[in-house]
């Protein structure tokens, strides 16, 4: 009975063929495995240097990370239109030097590198710096002496001393605060350690965070105890033993030097990549030029790639909505609202997201029901709901933070306007059709959002959508076929079940 629209089916088949061909190319030629397991983790790091050019020649030198014990550099690349580039392999550090005779306005330079975080046998161990005792004057000297003796009392072993120092600088210790008036934490810690005859130095570290964008370098402290070397984060924010990181610069110099320009900033973007061992071998043999077929998202700058990692999951969510609506017949409030909610869940983690969503929508509905008693124009009413949602978010975040739940801060990740419209629509539904319909549609939306969340957080799904763009064509084909499906929906079978009897 269901006569299939012929054009649609041809189109769907063509899309499928195209999709499968692209997937096969990625798999067999580029060597990307279908399962995320058969690969290893690489960190692609992109440094973006921006500055305003002055008149005259420009020279930029940018310190590059040396190979350390912590990681192995796999490959590197730069992008800098018009600039001449040389690499200066210095004794202490490698430096990239860009130069140009003249340039105007804002300039952007890119340096990309791929790192593998694993012990590097080839790299030389870091040499401990010579002890240079600082000279403290006046009240600073007293404060330094007091802080140091407190730390020394706690323990005599160098690594314990620094931990005690970090703690002292974090707590509102008067002496420690006095020291911080004229210097940074890391600088003071290094000075105090030197004072105590413990060799230490400041290093610039990049904390690796998947999908991180515009990240700064952080100043950490490297401490030596004879042969042993350890790294500490003076701010206490990160635990170096548990977070992946890379030493970018450890020779007490600046990371970037600029001549002929001003306002230089450097920001790092990074992305965790699952790369098969096979493909790495091929990469080494073949030259770096990506072929036309290989020209995919993976040739974009890293910060855009990080964005796409999330964007490429949206079609999966959309597909779920389409399946749920045309094949199952679930009602959702707002067609693609569930996808947005699922994306928000991915940011907030599930439990926080669920609680937050229910709280915001619930309280929003209460506020909205108050507004509905007054004669308000639609635009004004929606605006009031939006403002209320913002206030609810702020209130919950503050309350959650007070109770020590930093999770509460993630509420801000919910799409506000979408939430406001959801509240508005649900409250109209409530007035018109009663609470049952609200529960039905709200529940339907939440169910689809949950399903979307479960699929989109699946490691295999993330791996496949990010590495196989061809999959998107197959999604399109499935949606096309769903769009011309004239059969019964699952819920219709339940609705019309009475026809079975007669």
């Amino acid at each position, binding site marked *: *009975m*269901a006569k299939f629209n012929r054009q649609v089916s041809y189109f769907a088949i063509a899309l499928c063929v195209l999709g499968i061909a692209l997937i096969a190319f990625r798999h067999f030629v580029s060597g990307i495995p279908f399962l995320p397991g058969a690969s290893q983790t690489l960190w692609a790091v992109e440094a973006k240097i921006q500055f305003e050019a002055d008149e005259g020649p420009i020279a930029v030198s940018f310190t590059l990370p040396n190979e350390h014990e912590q990681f192995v550099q796999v490959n590197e690349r730069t992008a800098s239109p018009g600039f001449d580039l040389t690499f200066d392999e210095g004794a202490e550090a490698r430096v990239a030097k860009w130069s140009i005779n003249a340039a105007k306005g804002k300039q952007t330079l890119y340096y990309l590198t791929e790192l593998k975080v694993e012990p590097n046998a080839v790299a030389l161990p870091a040499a401990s710096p010579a002890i240079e005792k600082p000279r403290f004057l006046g009240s600073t000297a007293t404060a330094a002496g007091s802080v140091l003796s407190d730390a020394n009392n706690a323990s005599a072993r160098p690594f314990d001393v620094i931990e005690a120092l970090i703690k002292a600088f974090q707590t509102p210790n008067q002496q420690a605060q006095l020291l911080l008036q004229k210097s940074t934490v890391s600088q003071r810690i290094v000075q105090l350690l030197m004072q105590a005859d413990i060799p230490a130095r400041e290093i610039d570290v990049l904390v690796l965070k998947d999908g991180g964008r515009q990240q700064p370098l952080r100043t950490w402290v490297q401490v030596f105890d004879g042969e042993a070397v350890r790294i500490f984060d003076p701010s206490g924010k990160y635990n170096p033993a548990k977070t992946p990181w890379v030493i970018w610069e450890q020779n007490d110099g600046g990371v970037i030097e600029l001549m002929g320009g001003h306002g230089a900033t450097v920001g790092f973007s990074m992305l965790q990549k699952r790369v098969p061992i096979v493909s790495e071998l091929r990469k080494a043999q073949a030259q770096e030029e990506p072929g036309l077929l290989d020209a995919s998202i993976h040739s974009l700058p890293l910060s855009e790639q990080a964005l796409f990692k999330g964007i490429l999951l949206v079609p999966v969510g959309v597909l779920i909505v389409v399946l749920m609506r*045309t094949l199952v*017949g679930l009602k959702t409030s707002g067609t693609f609202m569930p996808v947005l909610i699922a994306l928000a869940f991915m940011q907030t983690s599930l439990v926080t997201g669920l609680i937050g969503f229910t709280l915001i929508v619930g309280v929003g509905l209460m506020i909205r029901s108050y507004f509905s008693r007054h*004669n*308000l*124009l*639609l635009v004004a*009413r*929606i605006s009031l709901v939006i403002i209320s949602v913002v206030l609810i978010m702020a209130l919950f975040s503050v309350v959650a933070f007070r109770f020590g739940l930093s999770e509460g801060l993630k509420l801000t990740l919910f799409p506000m306007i979408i939430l406001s419209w959801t509240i508005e629509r649900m409250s*109209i539904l409530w007035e*018109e*059709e009663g609470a049952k319909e609200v529960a039905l549609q709200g529940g339907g939306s939440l169910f689809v959002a949950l399903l979307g969340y479960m699929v989109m957080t699946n490691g295999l799904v993330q791996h496949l959508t990010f590495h196989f763009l061809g999959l998107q064509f197959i999604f399109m084909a499935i949606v096309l076929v769903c769009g*011309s*499906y*004239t*059969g*019964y*929906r*699952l819920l*219709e*079978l*339940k*609705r*019309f*079940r*009475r*026809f*079975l009897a*007669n």
Partner: protein
Amino acid sequence: MMSTPIYNRLITPLKKRLTPWCIPYFKVHTALKKKGIMGMNCRNIRYIGRYNARKLYPLVDDKLKTKKLAMVNAVNVPDLLDVVGEQHDIPNIHAKVKGTAGFCIKPAQGSGGKGILVVLPADADAQKEGVSWLRTNGKPLSQQDIERHLSNILAGIFSLGGKSDVAVVEELIQVDPAFTKYTHQGVPDLRIIVFQGVPIMAMMRLSCEASKGKANLHQGAVGVGIDIATGAAINAVQHGVDITHHPDTGQSLSDLVVPQWAQMLQLACACYDMTGLGYLGVDIVLDKFKGPLLLELNARPGLAIQVANNAGLLPRLVAVESRIQTQKTLGSIDERIAFMQQFLTTHSE
């Protein structure tokens, strides 16, 4: 054990909830196919998508346009009392409706019966207390209430996507005495599905206590399937379950015969000629004095009519489609009605 309070409180309702789900889905699928029950996807793709041109939708989605079109085409509609298009016109309403025997305020672009306010005149006792209008449930309705409702309509609360709207004020329909015993509150209406100008299936919608005076089946109104050939009741349902008597008035529903049936079919088919929409739901009311009146048109009529008629739409739709293929044209309104009545008597299920 079986009668413990916990069992009654928890397990019994749960069982009641779950039993509708425990059905042989595959067998239901076969049964629906055999009976020619139309599903939502099929309706949207094969009929609405194919036969209803997008550009014609405003004719039915905007009640004011429908009304004007009907008046031009000599299709009877309830009298138009006023059209309120601006917030500052709202207070003028009171003068326009003064002295009428009740009126009805509708958002021109409302969907699914949303935002319709039926206003009845107060009896002499209430008028002494300064109340001039009542709701259908007998509660007084102040001038502010009416103004607030109009303001809400203009703001677009009831229209799709919240577009600003206009309010249509029309004269109240005087329910024909033939129907008063079948209705609790509100006006019973007749829904006829018209496909390519041929009446396909019909259903009476009777409001009742459970539906709060509304005539929508999913809100609990009673649906009575009506035979296209005779105008007599076939079957009646409420909440998807067969019933034999009206839940409030206790009237036997199998005795229901729609009066002036031939005129009703004529009116419904004329709506196709007037709008050009191939798959159309026509809602008709029967006025005591004026006879059948077109209430509104629907370009996406629902599927519950199949349950009320205990029959599927597809065999009838396919019959019309194949007749178009063989005959090229379906002829005049009388010929189209005769065709469907003939088809139903020869293919009685």
